[in-house]
């Protein structure tokens, strides 16, 4: 029983972390339908800028704020110069965002050098509690809480305002949305900025989780995020949350019980979902 | 002999029954029209006939053969061709290429991989002829996406004619077509009906056109078949008058 609790708790936390990584992509790819291969770059920039500020000021909170601000600014720049000319054209999106991705991750090395940076959880989040045989890692509880919080906030915004609707409508028919007096360009830009900020947040929160950050982390985690968005159902926030937790949990239990398959577990999961429920676990209603 | 027949054809979308136990027959070479309020299930019925949708109940028979389980492609090859209510063409191919593909399918040239398509002269000629027929010659090399709405409707008709199937299912072929050109298209349809002896099923809201062309009219209401009769009889039907036609046509048909 203790074992199950341990595995479940860690799986849940990892799932929440993955959710945080994927949340931004749920907006950008799921909702706005932009195949943003530079997402990993935004994410890595969040991690680096956050860790750097954290190390400089010794305040994790400032680190997080720094990462989010970086995400917002980078998001604005990216949307304006990279994404805006290629909305609606996946082929061009792939090329231009891959190009931008190269620039982003290479610039990381220019600014912070080629070495990995290490990061530790702040004193108040470090360490773990032991209750019987159950080990509760404090930072993981923090991740679970943050994940739920972010989920709640974004979900509230999407439900209470018509931003989500407008974005989806804009993807389907931009002209028509404009004809209703909505400045869809601006809406897209803001949503993209929020998406990047979420990516950056995911980046800084990952840092103490794994202990190190490195320039190549972007692409690795971006693929994971794409997987989560697709499994969850394009553009569905609850879907992403569920899929992320599923990925986290499956990873945790499979690694323990079926270690032979642990390398393949994400791919198998995705293949199964796509074969048996091609539209993703949660399809956006409508 | 009935070339097309349905038995208890039914389809449900969630809780909503869009086509409800519809049984009817279309004799060979008949011109049958379908009318009914918006959302009555006319287009859905077409989708069931041509195979775009699979029914939740009932069957479709083509020349006595049960085709309910066949794909749209198979049915097209067996002789059911259709046009679409919402313009449905290949947007980034030229008008010529759009029509050529249909002719190609008609000729059964499907899996030839080694010869250049333009070496099939007869196909090209036929495509050009059809484009002329629907008055699109000037736009032959235009990409379909760049056509005006009415022009797309004409292309749609050319593609259907190119398929040269025994049965033609026409879903509001002239919607959005200009006044001037409707008669010309009607002429085309009429000629096909007469000379080439086709079976035609037409969905339209233009009553004068329907009265002019139809051998029989079928009325759908809320997915159910309300009546299937001679045009004159249908016009007498009170429900048709009040719930479908309204006042607009009174003075005109009078």
């Amino acid at each position: 029983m203790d074992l199950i609790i341990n595995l479940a708790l860690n799986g849940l936390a990892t799932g929440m972390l993955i959710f945080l990584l994927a949340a931004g992509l749920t907006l950008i790819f799921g909702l706005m339908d932009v195949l943003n291969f530079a997402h990993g770059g935004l994410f890595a920039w969040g991690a680096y800028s956050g860790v750097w500020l954290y190390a400089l000021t010794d305040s994790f909170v400032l680190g997080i704020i720094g990462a989010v601000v970086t995400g917002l600014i980078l998001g604005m720049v990216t949307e304006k110069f990279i994404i805006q000319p290629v909305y609606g054209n996946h082929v061009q999106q792939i090329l231009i965002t891959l190009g931008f991705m190269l620039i982003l991750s290479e610039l990381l090395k220019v600014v912070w050098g080629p070495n990995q940076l290490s990061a530790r959880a702040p004193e108040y989040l470090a360490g773990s509690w032991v209750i019987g045989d159950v080990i509760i890692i404090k930072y993981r509880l923090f991740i679970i809480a943050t994940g739920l919080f972010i989920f709640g906030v974004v979900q509230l915004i999407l439900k209470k305002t018509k931003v989500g609707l407008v974005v989806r409508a804009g993807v389907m028919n931009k002209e028509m949305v404009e004809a209703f007096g909505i400045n869809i360009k601006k809406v897209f830009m803001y949503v993209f900025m929020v998406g990047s900020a979420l990516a950056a947040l995911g980046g800084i929160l990952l840092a103490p989780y794994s202990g190190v950050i490195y320039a190549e982390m972007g692409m690795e985690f971006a693929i994971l995020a794409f997987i989560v968005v697709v499994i969850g159902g394009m553009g569905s926030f609850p879907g992403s949350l569920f899929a992320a937790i599923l990925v986290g949990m499956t990873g945790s239990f499979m690694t323990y019980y079926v270690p032979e398959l642990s390398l393949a577990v994400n791919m198998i999961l995705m293949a199964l979902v796509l074969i048996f429920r091609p539209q993703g676990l949660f399809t956006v209603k409508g | 002999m009935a070339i097309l027949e349905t038995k208890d054809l039914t389809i449900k979308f969630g809780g909503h029954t869009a086509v409800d136990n519809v049984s009817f027959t279309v004799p060979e070479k008949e011109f049958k029209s379908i009318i009914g309020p918006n959302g009555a299930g006319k287009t859905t019925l077409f989708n069931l006939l041509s195979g775009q949708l699979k029914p939740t109940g009932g069957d479709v028979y083509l020349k006595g053969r049960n085709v309910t389980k066949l794909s749209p492609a198979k049915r097209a090859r067996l002789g059911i061709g259709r046009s679409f209510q919402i313009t449905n063409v290949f947007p980034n191919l030229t008008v010529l290429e759009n029509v050529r593909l249909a002719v190609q399918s008609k000729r059964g040239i499907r899996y030839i991989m080694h010869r250049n398509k333009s070496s099939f002269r007869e196909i090209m000629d036929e495509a050009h002829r059809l484009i002329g027929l629907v008055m699109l010659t000037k736009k032959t090399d235009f990409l379909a996406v760049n056509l005006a709405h009415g022009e797309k409707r004409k292309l749609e008709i050319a593609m259907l004619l190119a398929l040269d199937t025994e049965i033609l299912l026409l879903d509001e072929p002239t919607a959005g077509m200009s006044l001037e050109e409707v008669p010309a298209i009607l002429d085309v349809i009429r000629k096909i009906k007469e000379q080439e002896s086709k079976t035609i099923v037409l969905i339209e809201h233009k009553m004068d056109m329907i009265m002019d062309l139809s051998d029989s009219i079928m009325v759908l209401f809320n997915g159910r078949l309300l009546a299937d009769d001679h045009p004159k009889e249908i016009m007498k039907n009170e429900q048709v008058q009040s719930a479908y036609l309204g006042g607009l046509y009174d003075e005109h048909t009078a």
Partner: protein
Amino acid sequence: MKILQSRSNMFMGIALLILVLFPLFNDSRSMMILLTQIFIFGIFAMSYDLLLGYTGIVSFGHAMFFGIGAYSTGIFLDRMEPTMMWFFISLLAGFAVAGIVSYIVGLLTLRLKSHFYAMLTLAFAGLFLVLAEKWRTLTFGNDGFTFRTPDFMKDRMTFYFACLAVMAAVYFILKRFTQSPAGSVLQAIRENEQRAESLGFHVLHYKIIASVIAGVLASLAGSLYAISLRFVNTSVFTMDITLDALLMTIIGGVGTLIGAIIGAGLIEFAHHWLTELAGTYPIFERWIIFFGILYILAVMFFPAGIVGSLRKIGSKKKTVKKHRPEEKKIAG
């Protein structure tokens, strides 16, 4: 149209001639290897173009077939003998496996809409990567293994000609195919799948045909790639390889075939020059940034890819000329 066609045929003939004569005048082997590499990736990118440009299928797992070819050649030549016979057997083995896999993947997945298909291919390619990693008795895992090539292909110049010939052959076969009636159905499917079906074309058949041809050709490219390196490891199954094909195809212009080759050439040459500059000038130390800029500029200035955009400019000039006598008001 005809004129444009014959002119581009002439350019292609000249280009081919230059490539054939190249080794006779140039004795830089590394340039020859670079060109060989371009030919191989040209084949790979063309196979991808058949999917992306002609059938409208985005795959994130094309490396799977490339890897299948590379490994089957590697394994056969390593385990059996490094002779031409075994090479051909390995090719056939690669074709067979790639064909079967692409058939199954096609059957399972072509019913899915774009993203979902792309992601499923990503998953399958990922599984192959894991397989190559784990089946260590056969593949030696991540480190990979070296093997000897048949004597015939040992000489770089022979191999250069072989790859050039194969690329040219693949180009002409694919050109024929895409311009055939069956090929034009692929384009119809790309444009409007449901309408193609209602015209009486069995969409799934065509998609599977395209998928199998693309898979087999990718496997061919993989085999040649393995021969060119005389080494194979799990990198042939990675996302990077798929992205290479994707980038080359897009940069050259999707749906043009020749664009795939030009894209391969452009990327490989740009890479070559940039790294060379990196060796000479310190500011190019971060040459990858310039590479990224190249992609971005490509999208800005050649939105339809190099070949696609050039053709558009060409046809625009042509139509304007054609329309001028009839419609006087068209501004220059």
